[in-house]
C-alpha cells in the first residue's frame, strides 16, 4: 500500500491535525448550507455569505485536508524523509487561523480581515512548498505522481497570490474587471490546485485501495499534462481578457483531461481484484461524475455556448457547487474513509499487534455510518446542484438537509475512528500482526 505511510512518512498526527481541522470545517460547511442554503446558493456568487461558504469549503475543508495529505504522501513518493516535521506542525496554525479569518472576514465583510487571513494562508502555503521542495533528495528523479502533486502545490501558491491581489483590491480598489479576476482565482484553485492534486493522488491511491493490477498507465502523463496546461492557459487567457473562443480552447484541454482520467479509472476498476466496490471506490465514482459534469459546464460556459438558464448566475453557482461539493469533497471524503483509519491504526495498534487482540482497520468505524455518509452526501449534493439549476430554493433546502445528514454520518464515523469509540467485534475477526 505505497502512498499512505512508510518509514519515510512523518508521525501520524502531523497530517492528521490538518485532516481533523478540515473535517470540522466540512461539518460547519454543510451545517451552514442546510441553514442558509437558499441565500448562499441563490445565484449571487459574490455575496458575502456565499464567499464565506466558498472559502470555508475551499480553504477550511479542501485545502487543510489536502495539505495534510501532501505532508503524508509526498515524502513517501519521494522515498525521502520530510525536511522538517516542526515546520509541518508550525504551518498548521496559520492555515487554520487564515481559513477562519477568511470565512469571518467575508461573512462580516471586513476586507482587512480577509487580507490578513489571506496572508496567513500564504504563510502556510509557503511553509508547505518549502518543506516539500527541501525534502527532494539531490539528483532524485521524481515519479509522475510526485511531479503532479508538486505541480498542484505551485498552483496553490498562485491561487493564494491571486487571492491576495483580490483582497488588496477590496482594500484599495485598483482592479477594473473584478469578476474576471475572481474567475482566474477560482480556475487556479479548482483546476490547478484541487484537480491536479486529486488526479495525481488518485492514480496512486485508487489502484492501491482496489488492488488493481495489470492496467495501462500510458495515458497518465498526458492526462496530468492536459489538466495542468489547460488550467494554466485558461487562467492566463482569462486574466489577460481574451475572448471566449480563445479561453474555450485550453478549457477544452481540461475537459479532455477529465475524460482521460475517467477512462483510466474505468480501466483501473476493471483490473481491480477486490470485487466488492468499497466506500472509497463508490465515493470516487460519484466524485468523478460530478467532476466530468462540472468540467463540461465550465467549457460550455467559457465558450458561451450555454443557453441563458445555464450561463446565468444559477448555472455558475451550480458549476462551482458541483466542483467543490461534488468533485473535490466526495473524492476527499472517500479517501479519508481509508486514510484516517489507516493512520490511526498504525499510530494506535501497530506496536500492540501481536501482543494483544487488536481490530482490523475496517473495524474502526461502523459500516452503517459509512453507507449513510455515502447516500446522504451523494444524493444531497447532486440533488442540490439540480435544485440550484432549476431555481427551486425549497428543494435545495431539503437536499442540503440530506447532505448535512450525510456529513454528520461521516463526522460520526471519523469520531469513532479518532476517539476509539467503536465497540470492536471480538468474535470471528482475524488478528492482525502475530496472532494471539
Amino acid at each position: 500500500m505505497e502512498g499512505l505511510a512508510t518509514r519515510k512518512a512523518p508521525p501520524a498526527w502531523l497530517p492528521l491535525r490538518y485532516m481533523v481541522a478540515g473535517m470540522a470545517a466540512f461539518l460547519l460547511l454543510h451545517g451552514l448550507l442546510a441553514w442558509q442554503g437558499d441565500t448562499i446558493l441563490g445565484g449571487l456568487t459574490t455575496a458575502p455569505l456565499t464567499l464565506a461558504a466558498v472559502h470555508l469549503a475551499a480553504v477550511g475543508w479542501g485545502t487543510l485536508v489536502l495539505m495534510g495529505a501532501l505532508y503524508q504522501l509526498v515524502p513517501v513518493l519521494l522515498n525521502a524523509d520530510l525536511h522538517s516535521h516542526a515546520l509541518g506542525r508550525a504551518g498548521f496554525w496559520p492555515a487554520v487561523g487564515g481559513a477562519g479569518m477568511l470565512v469571518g472576514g467575508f461573512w462580516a465583510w471586513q476586507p482587512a480581515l480577509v487580507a490578513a487571513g489571506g496572508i496567513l494562508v500564504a504563510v502556510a502555503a509557503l511553509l508547505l512548498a518549502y518543506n516539500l521542495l527541501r525534502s527532494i533528495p539531490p539528483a532524485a528523479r521524481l515519479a509522475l505522481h510526485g511531479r503532479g502533486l508538486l505541480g498542484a502545490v505551485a498552483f496553490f501558491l498562485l491561487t493564494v497570490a491571486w487571492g491576495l491581489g483580490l483582497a488588496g483590491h477590496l482594500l484599495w480598489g485598483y482592479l477594473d474587471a473584478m469578476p474576471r479576476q475572481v474567475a482566474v482565482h477560482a480556475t487556479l484553485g479548482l483546476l490547478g490546485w484541487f484537480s491536479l492534486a486529486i488526479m495525481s493522488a488518485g492514480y496512486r491511491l485508487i489502484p492501491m485501495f482496489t488492488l488493481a493490477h495489470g492496467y495501462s498507465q500510458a495515458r497518465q502523463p498526458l492526462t496530468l499534462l492536459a489538466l495542468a496546461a489547460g488550467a494554466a492557459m485558461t487562467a492566463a487567457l482569462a486574466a489577460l481578457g481574451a475572448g471566449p473562443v480563445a479561453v474555450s480552447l485550453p478549457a477544452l484541454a481540461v475537459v479532455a483531461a477529465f475524460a482521460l482520467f475517467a477512462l483510466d479509472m474505468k480501466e483501473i476498476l476493471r483490473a481491480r481484484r477486490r470485487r466488492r466496490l468499497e466506500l472509497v471506490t463508490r465515493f470516487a465514482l460519484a466524485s468523478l461524475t460530478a467532476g466530468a459534469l462540472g468540467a463540461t459546464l465550465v467549457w460550455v460556459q467559457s465558450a458561451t455556448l450555454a443557453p441563458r438558464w445555464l450561463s446565468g448566475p444559477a448555472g455558475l453557482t451550480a458549476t462551482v457547487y458541483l466542483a467543490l461539493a461534488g468533485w473535490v469533497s466526495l473524492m476527499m471524503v472517500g479517501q479519508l474513509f481509508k486514510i484516517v483509519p489507516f493512520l490511526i491504526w498504525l499510530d494506535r495498534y501497530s506496536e500492540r499487534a501481536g501482543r494483544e487482540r487488536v481490530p482490523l482497520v475496517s473495524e474502526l468505524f461502523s459500516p452503517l455510518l459509512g453507507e449513510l455518509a455515502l447516500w446522504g452526501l451523494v444524493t444531497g449534493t447532486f440533488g442540490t446542484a439540480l435544485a440550484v439549476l432549476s431555481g427551486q430554493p425549497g428543494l435545495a433546502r431539503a437536499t442540503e438537509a440530506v447532505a448535512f445528514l450525510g456529513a454528520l454520518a461521516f463526522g460520526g464515523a471519523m469520531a469513532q475512528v479518532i476517539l476509539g469509540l467503536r465497540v470492536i467485534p471480538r468474535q470471528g475477526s482475524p488478528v492482525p500482526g502475530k496472532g494471539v
Partner: protein
Amino acid sequence: MVSEEKVREALRRVFDPELGLNVVDLGLIYGIAIDGGRVRVTMTLTTQGCPLQHAMTGWVREAVAALDGVAAVDVDVVFTPPWTPERMSEAARQGLGV
C-alpha cells in the same frame, strides 16, 4: 528442530490488518530457508513501499522467533518478482471476493 512447515504455520498467524488475511494465504511468502537455528524468510508486499512494511516484517520476525529451536530470524523483503493476486490461496481469494 524447526521445520519449514512449522515456520509456515507460524506465519499463518500474521495478518494484514487492512485486508484481514494472513501473509501465507496472501502469497506474500516467497521462500523459507533454514540453516540450523537460523531462519531466513523471503517475502514481498502487495505493492512496493507498503505502509505496513516495517510493522509486517517485525511481526514475521516475532512469529518465527517464538518457535522452539529458532535462534535467529532474517526477513528479506523483495519486489522481484512482483506480487500479483494470482499468488493468493483459494481461501484468500474467497476472502477478498476475487
